[in-house]
């Protein structure tokens, strides 16, 4: 019995120290991860201030510092590309959100004939590699006069028109709003439209913000299709296409640090916006994954 009373606190101490050790290990792990994850971005930032030459080099810390790269950006078409991308992102995020909400609300709340079939067909459509349809979309846009220098409206049209396929996450969200709310309002004589406007939309702030955010962010990174549609015309490029050109074999020696400076300017606003609305993004992706 006396043995037991002596043993107990010792064991307790052991638990505590082992927890402390494992926590320390986790802190070290997390610190290492954070460093590894941030290194490339810190490198981009440092390289954008490097002025001794413009080539890729094997060291990180610049030998001479300066903002020449940023000043040079304004002598290129970069401001134009930036504006293009911003317009595309702004307009398509508004319109895409509208389309996605229409689609997902209808599929979540109405039980009409062919609804299951529709959803299954869209699942199957999603399995086709979209890459191949670009050539046709390019041709259609060319017939509408929306390519090359006029690529901006063309890109908006295609992003918005095909966004109905992205209904999944917000449908999952609408499914979680109890139907009894709708029914109560319907009994009181509200039309379906009024139910959507007065009851569902005010409750849907997280999913609206999630949809706007993802729609706003994706044009900044779209590279393949934007390249196709702008077809080499500088006035129609977005930042991704324009800056990709700077890393071509024959341009990289002159434009590598320029790319870094441009990258910093693109990353800052998107990242700030994202961090502000992080909460909604997390809710969206988690919901989407659980619903599968």
């Amino acid at each position, binding site marked *: 019995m006396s043995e037991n009373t002596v043993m107990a606190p010792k064991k307790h101490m052991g638990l505590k120290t082992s927890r402390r050790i494992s926590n320390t290990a986790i802190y070290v792990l997390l610190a290492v991860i954070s460093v590894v994850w941030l290194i490339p971005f810190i490198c981009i930032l440092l390289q954008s201030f490097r002025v001794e030459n413009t080539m890729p080099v094997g060291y990180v810390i610049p030998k001479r510092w300066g903002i020449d790269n940023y000043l040079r950006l304004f002598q290129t078409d970069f401001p134009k590309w930036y504006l293009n991308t911003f317009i595309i992102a702004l307009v398509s995020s508004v319109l895409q959100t509208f389309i996605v909400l229409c689609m997902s609300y209808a599929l979540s709340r109405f039980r009409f004939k062919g609804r299951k079939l529709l959803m299954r067909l869209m699942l199957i459509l999603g399995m086709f590699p979209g890459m191949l349809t670009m050539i046709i979309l390019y041709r259609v846009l060319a017939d509408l006069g929306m390519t090359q220098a006029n690529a901006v409206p063309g890109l908006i049209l*295609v992003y918005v028109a095909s966004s*109905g396929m992205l209904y999944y996450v917000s449908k999952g969200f609408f499914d979680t709003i109890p139907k009894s709310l709708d029914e109560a309002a319907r009994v009181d004589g509200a039309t379906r*439209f009024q139910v959507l406007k007065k009851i569902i939309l005010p409750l849907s702030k997280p999913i609206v913000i999630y949809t706007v955010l993802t729609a706003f962010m994706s044009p*900044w990174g779209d590279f393949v299709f934007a390249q196709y549609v702008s077809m080499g015309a500088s006035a129609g490029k977005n930042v991704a296409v324009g800056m990709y050109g700077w890393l071509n074999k024959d341009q990289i020696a002159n434009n590598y640090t320029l790319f870094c400076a441009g990258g910093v300017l693109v990353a800052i606003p998107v990242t700030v916006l994202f*961090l502000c609305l*992080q909460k909604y993004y997390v809710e969206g992706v988690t919901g989407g994954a659980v619903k*599968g």
Partner: protein
Amino acid sequence: MVKYTDLEYLRMKKGKRFGLKLLSFLCSIPRKTAAFFLMLLTGIKQAALKIAGEARDICMGFVTGDWKTKVSYLVMGFGCFARGQILRGVLFLLFEVVFIGYMVLFGGYYLGMMPSLGKQGPTTEKVASGLRGTATVTIYHDNSFRILLYSVLTIFFIIAFIYTWRVNVKQNLTAERILKSGKKLRSGKEDLRSLVDDQFHKTLLALPMTGILVFTVLPIIFMILVAFTNYCGANNGYTNNLFHWVGLDNFNTMLNWTNGSSSYAATFGEVLAWTLIWAFFATFTNYFLGMMVAMAINKKGIHFKKGWRTVLVMTVAIPQFISLLYVSKMFASNGIVNGLLMDLGIIDMDHLLPFWTDPTWARITVIIINIWIGIPYLMLITTGILMNIPADLYESARIDGASGWQQYSKITLPYMLFVTGPYLLTSFTGNMNNFNVIYLLTGGAPTNNLSTAPGTVGYTDLLITWLFKITQGAEANYYLASVVGILVFLVVAIISLVVYNLLPSIKNEEDFQ
């Protein structure tokens, strides 16, 4: 096959359980395939019966209906006018007029050209120009690309017309019946109101569905049709050369094995194998490591949870073309990584690490960099789900003396797999088509010089980047790219189908535990 009762099943060892499940799955394949075709057959039969019934109804309606109904079989919307439903009448009539106009002006021409895809190619002719005489110009006649595109559109339009015609006939018959029974018809105002009320879904779906139809479905159908032509697609879609139907020749070219390892089929097999390996590793490394990071951050007693998360989440926000292109340059032979290792004296000038030049190195490097890309995202997803696991499960496990690993493998992992099973599947197929990571990191390099297939295949090329390369450049080979696209679809569809069929077994397992 031996049948086991639930109790016997529970007594089995893990390996035996898995073996049993696999066996029963394999045994069920023939039965399931047969059931699938049977289902297809009955489906077709039912559809045929339904159409026949519909046709009979429509014919009977013509015989028994009054003159207003009879006229509207020919002039759509006439019955609606005659019965006072002006709004509906106007819409039906308008649609018919537009349809007939379109068919006469364009549709008929394109549809007529569809079997041949155009007969007369571009010709050069001399024309008078200015004062100095003649100049040679190229005159374009038939354009196969446009003929194919617009004939598909015309077929869409015809289907829409038939559907609308049927709606028109049916509405006439209903209207007639309603009037006979002494009730009143809906007015135009009520029709409009119903569009924001009980027919609201039609209003909601109209715009998105039109977009999907024109900008997703139409291109996909076109793409499938191109696989049966010899359209090469040089100059990015601006070709005025004629092309024509070639039947299954392209599939034959792609899948023919007669030349052995130098045939296209061999290249396809290699790329497919790497695509599957890549998708497997990309999905599961991210999944488990992301879950690990999430659990580390979630652990009791760890401070600055929000800070750690924010650091990782920041990397989700930065556009991939910046981070991936930059990282790809970091690992180049003159990049920072090699430079740093040289400064540290670990390697020297002659032994630079071949991140992008050696096939095996390149493959491993893309998988590792993909972990860097994917962990933050998975961390976000799993954090929420991990928090949903009831804490009392762990509590009781701890009281029973379960170690950390046991808690993980008996509680956390089964729960996570159960909840995120469908997500894993979509993520697997998504990784198979993960264009950005591969294209921006390596562009498919290092090149596979043994392959004779079009599109300069590389060792890190996935099917999707390969088919993109086939469509590029002067030697673009669009019809082969279409064949690859169709094959990609088949692979993805088969995997999805099989895994979805296996998923319920995961759920059953959950029932046992």
